[in-house]
C-alpha cells in the first residue's frame, strides 16, 4: 500500500507545474554554483602557485581545499599566508579582501544553495500534501480504502522525498562528474568520502524540511495558510535564528575584540625592539619574550573564544539549519574547529622556527622545515561535534514526522 501511494505521489509530481519550476530552479542553481565555485577554487589555486613558499622560506601557507567548492566556510581565511619573523607572524589575506562586495553578500556555494533554496523547495513539496487532497476531496476517498493513516502519510512522504532527492542527486552527481574531469580539481579518497557524507547530510536536511512541510500541512485546513506559516517558519529557521545566536552569545561571554588583540601584538614587538635599542638584554631574549607573550595572548583568547563558539553553537542549534552548516563545514574541513586547529599548527610552526634560529643564528632560514597542515581525520571531526549535529538533524526530522503522524491521525478528512 505504501508503495502504491508513493508511486501515485511521484506520478502526480511529475505531471505538476510546480515540479518543473522547482526542479529547474534547483538544477540551474546547483549547476551554476558548482561552476562558479570551481572557477573560484582554480583561481585561488593559481594564486597559491604564485605565493607558495620556496624551500627554506619561513612562510606557512595552506593550499585551498577542493571541498571548498561545496562548502566554502572559512577556506578563504585558512588559505592566507602566515609569514614568520622574529617580531611575530605577519598575515596577508587573499583576493577577496580587495573587493568589499564579497563581504556584503553570502557565498553562493553548494551549501548555500542546499541550505536556502532546497529547504524552500522541500517545503513547497510538503506544504499542501494533506490540505490539497482534502480540498480536492480525494483524501477521504483514499482513506475509504483499507489504508491506514500511517501508511498514507509514509507513502506520501516517501513519494515526495524520492521525487525531490532523485533529481537533486542526479544534478549534483552530474556536477561532481564534470568537476572530476577537470585535472585541476583532485579529490583524495578521504575527500571523496567526506563529499559523500556531505551529500548524505544534504539529503537528511531536505528530509527534515519535507517533514516540517507535512507537519504544518496536517495542522492546517487550507493549503494557503499552510504555505504562509511555512514561509515564515522557513525565514526564521534559515536566516534569523542562526544569525542572532552568534551576537547574543557575544553579549554573554566576554571575549576581547580581534582588533584589541592585533593592537596588543603590535605593542608587544615594538616595545621589545625599543628595549633592545636602549640596550637592555640580548636579541635572543627579546625574540623569546615577543613569542611567549604572543602565545600567551593567543592561548587566553582561544580559551575564551572556544567558550564563545560553544555557546553560540548551542544557541544557534535551536535551528537545525545551523547544525547542518556546522556539520557540513566541519566535514569539508572549512569549519570553525578546523580553522582553530590550523592556527594552533601555525603557532607551533612559528615556535619551532624561532627556536631553531635562536639555537643557530647564522644558519637561520637555510634549512627551515616546510609547513604542512594535515587536516583532522574524519573520526576526530565527527567526535568533535559533527556527529552530534548530524544526530540532532536526524532527531528533528524524525520528531517532525512523528508529530505530523499525530496531527494526521487527528485530522478531519471530510
Amino acid at each position, binding site marked *: 500500500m505504501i508503495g502504491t501511494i508513493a508511486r501515485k505521489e511521484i506520478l502526480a509530481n511529475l505531471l505538476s507545474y510546480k515540479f518543473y519550476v522547482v526542479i529547474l530552479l534547483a538544477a540551474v542553481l546547483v549547476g551554476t554554483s558548482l561552476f562558479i565555485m570551481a572557477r573560484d577554487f582554480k583561481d585561488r589555486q593559481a594564486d597559491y602557485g604564485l605565493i607558495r613558499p620556496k624551500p627554506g622560506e619561513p612562510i606557512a601557507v595552506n593550499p585551498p581545499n577542493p571541498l571548498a567548492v561545496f562548502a566554502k566556510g572559512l577556506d578563504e581565511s585558512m588559505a592566507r599566508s602566515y609569514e614568520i619573523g622574529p617580531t611575530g607572524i605577519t598575515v596577508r589575506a587573499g583576493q577577496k579582501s580587495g573587493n568589499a562586495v*564579497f563581504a556584503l553578500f553570502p557565498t553562493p556555494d553548494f551549501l548555500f544553495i542546499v541550505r536556502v533554496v532546497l529547504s524552500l523547495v522541500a517545503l513547497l513539496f510538503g506544504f499542501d500534501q494533506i490540505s490539497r487532497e482534502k480540498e480536492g476531496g480525494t483524501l477521504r476517498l483514499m482513506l475509504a480504502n483499507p489504508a491506514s493513516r500511517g501508511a498514507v502519510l509514509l507513502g506520501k512522504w516517501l513519494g515526495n522525498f524520492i521525487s525531490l532527492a532523485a533529481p537533486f542527486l542526479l544534478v549534483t552527481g552530474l556536477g561532481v562528474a564534470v568537476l572530476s574531469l577537470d585535472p585541476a580539481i583532485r579529490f583524495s579518497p578521504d575527500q571523496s568520502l567526506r563529499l559523500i557524507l556531505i551529500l548524505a547530510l544534504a539529503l537528511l536536511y531536505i528530509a527534515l524540511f519535507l517533514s516540517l512541510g507535512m507537519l504544518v500541512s496536517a495542522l492546517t485546513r487550507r493549503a494557503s495558510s499552510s504555505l504562509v506559516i511555512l514561509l515564515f517558519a522557513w525565514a526564521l529557521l534559515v536566516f534569523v535564528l542562526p544569525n542572532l545566536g552568534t*551576537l547574543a552569545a557575544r553579549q554573554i561571554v566576554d571575549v576581547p575584540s580581534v582588533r584589541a588583540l592585533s593592537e596588543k601584538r603590535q605593542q608587544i614587538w615594538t616595545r621589545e625592539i625599543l628595549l633592545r635599542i636602549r640596550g637592555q638584554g640580548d636579541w635572543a631574549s627579546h625574540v623569546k619574550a615577543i613569542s611567549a607573550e604572543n602565545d600567551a595572548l593567543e592561548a587566553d583568547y582561544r580559551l575564551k573564544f572556544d567558550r564563545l563558539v560553544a555557546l553560540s553553537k548551542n544557541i544557534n542549534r535551536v535551528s537545525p539549519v545551523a547544525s547542518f552548516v556546522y556539520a557540513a563545514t566541519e566535514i569539508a574541513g572549512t569549519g570553525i574547529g578546523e580553522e582553530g586547529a590550523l592556527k594552533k599548527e601555525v603557532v607551533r610552526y612559528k615556535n619551532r622556527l624561532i627556536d631553531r634560529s635562536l639555537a643557530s643564528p647564522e644558519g637561520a632560514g637555510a634549512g627551515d622545515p616546510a609547513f604542512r597542515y594535515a587536516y583532522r581525520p574524519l573520526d576526530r571531526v565527527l567526535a568533535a561535534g559533527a556527529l552530534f549535529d548530524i544526530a540532532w538533524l536526524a532527531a528533528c526530522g524524525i520528531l517532525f514526522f512523528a508529530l505530523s503522524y499525530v496531527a494526521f491521525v487527528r485530522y478531519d478528512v471530510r
Partner: protein
Amino acid sequence: MFRAIVGKEILGNILSFRFVVTLALLLVVVPVATFVLTGDYLKKISDASLRQAEIETYLRSYAHFNRIGNILQAAMPPLPAESLVRGLTADINISEFDNDPLPVMFPLVDLVFVVTILMSLVALIFAYDAVSGEKEDGTLKLMLANGLARPKVILAKIVGGGLTLLVPYVMALIVGLLVILVQPGVGWAGADWAALGLITLGTVLYVMLFYALGVFVSARHQASSASIMTSLLVWVLIVLVVPSLSPYVASFLAPTPSRIQVEREAQRLGDTERDDLGRKLEAERLRELAAKYPILAEEMSEADRKRLMERDPAAREAMEARRKAVQGAWDEANRVQGEKITAVRSAAAKKDAAQTALARTISMISPLAVFTYLATDLTSTGMKNQEYFGRMRGEWGRDFWAYARKKMAELQAKDPATDWWNTAVDMSDRPRFAFKEEPLGGRVQAALPGFLLLAGYGLVFFALAYVSFLRYDVR
C-alpha cells in the same frame, strides 16, 4: 471608486491570516535584532575606549617617532546607526592573525536584512493571489461588471496592498527604535534620524516594487498556486542568487593580481631592497666625502673620535658632514623605494577598484543589492564610507607626520643628538584621529542613484502588471 478599491484591499489584507503572522514575526524579529545589535554597539564603544587607553599608556613609555607607525593607527569608531544597519562594520580583521570567523559563517540580522529578505518575501506572499486569487473566488468578474476601468483596479490594488504591508513594518520599527533609545549610552543626532527617514523612503520603494512584481506574476497566471511558485522562483533568483554571484562573476571578468604577492613585493621593496640601496648610496657618498675630509677615512674607536671632535673644529665639521651625508643617502633610498612601493600598490589598487565597481554594477540587477548600498551608504556603514574613511585617514596621517617633522626640528634645535630612532618623545600634543561622519548631503548624493533605480524597477514592474492585467481573462 478608486478609493473604495484601495479601502477594500487594505481591509482585506488587514483581516487576513498572513497579516497577523507578518505582524507577529516583525514584532519579534525587529526588536530582538535591535536589542542585540545595540548591546553589541555599546560593547564596541567600551572596547574602543579601552583600546585608546592602552595606546595612551603605551605611548607614555615607548613613544619614538620611527617606531609608532604601527601603533598609532586610525580606527573607525562605532556609529550609533549600527544598532540598525551593520553593513561592512563587522570586525572580521582578515589581514591580521586575530581574525573573527563567526561573522563570516553567519552574517548578521539587521534592518537591511529585515527589509531586503523578510519584507520582499512578505510582499510576494501578499501579492501572489491579488489577481489570480480574486479570479478563483469569482469576485474579479463581479468587480469588473461594475463601471470600473481595469487600470484603476490594478493601480488601486498595488497602492492598497503596498500600503498595508508598510503598517506592520512601521509598527515593528517603532518598537525597535524604542528598544534602542531606552538603553543608556545611545545618542542619535539629527543626521541619524534623517538617514533613517530616507531609508524608510527607500523601504517604501523597495516593498512597492516587490508588491508590483507579485501582482505582475499573479496577473500572468490563472491559478494562484502556480503564481506563488513563479513568485518564489523569481524571488530566489533576484534576491538570493544574483547579489551573491555578482562579485564572483566580476572577479572572473576583471581579475586582479595576486594580493599576497603584491603585499610581499611592497614589503621587499621597503625592507631588504631599501636597505641595499641605502647602504650603496651611503658608501658612495662617504667615498666622496673621504676625498674631501681625509680624517673620515681613518680607523679609530668611537671614544677616540669623540675626543678628536672635542679638540678639533675641523674634525667636528667633517663629522657633521658625514652625518648629513648618511642621512641624505637614506632619505634618498627611502624616497626612491617609496615611489616604487606606491607605484606597485596603486596599480593593484586600481585593479581592485575596477573589479569592485564592476561587481557593484552587476549586482544592481538585483533590487536587494540596490537597497543594501543605499541603506549602508546613508548610514556610513558601506563602501562609500570606506573610501571616505580612507581619505580621512590619509589626511590625519599627513597631519601627524607634519607634526612629527616640526616636533623633531624643535627637539633637534634644543639637542642635536636627538634622532628619529632612539629618542623618546612626549607626543601628548599630537593630532589625534577623530572620525567625523560624512555630512548627510554627500551621503544622500551617493544614495540618490539607488532611489532612482528602485523607483525605475518599480515602474517597470508596475507597467508589466498593468499590461498583463489588461490582457487578463477574468472569467
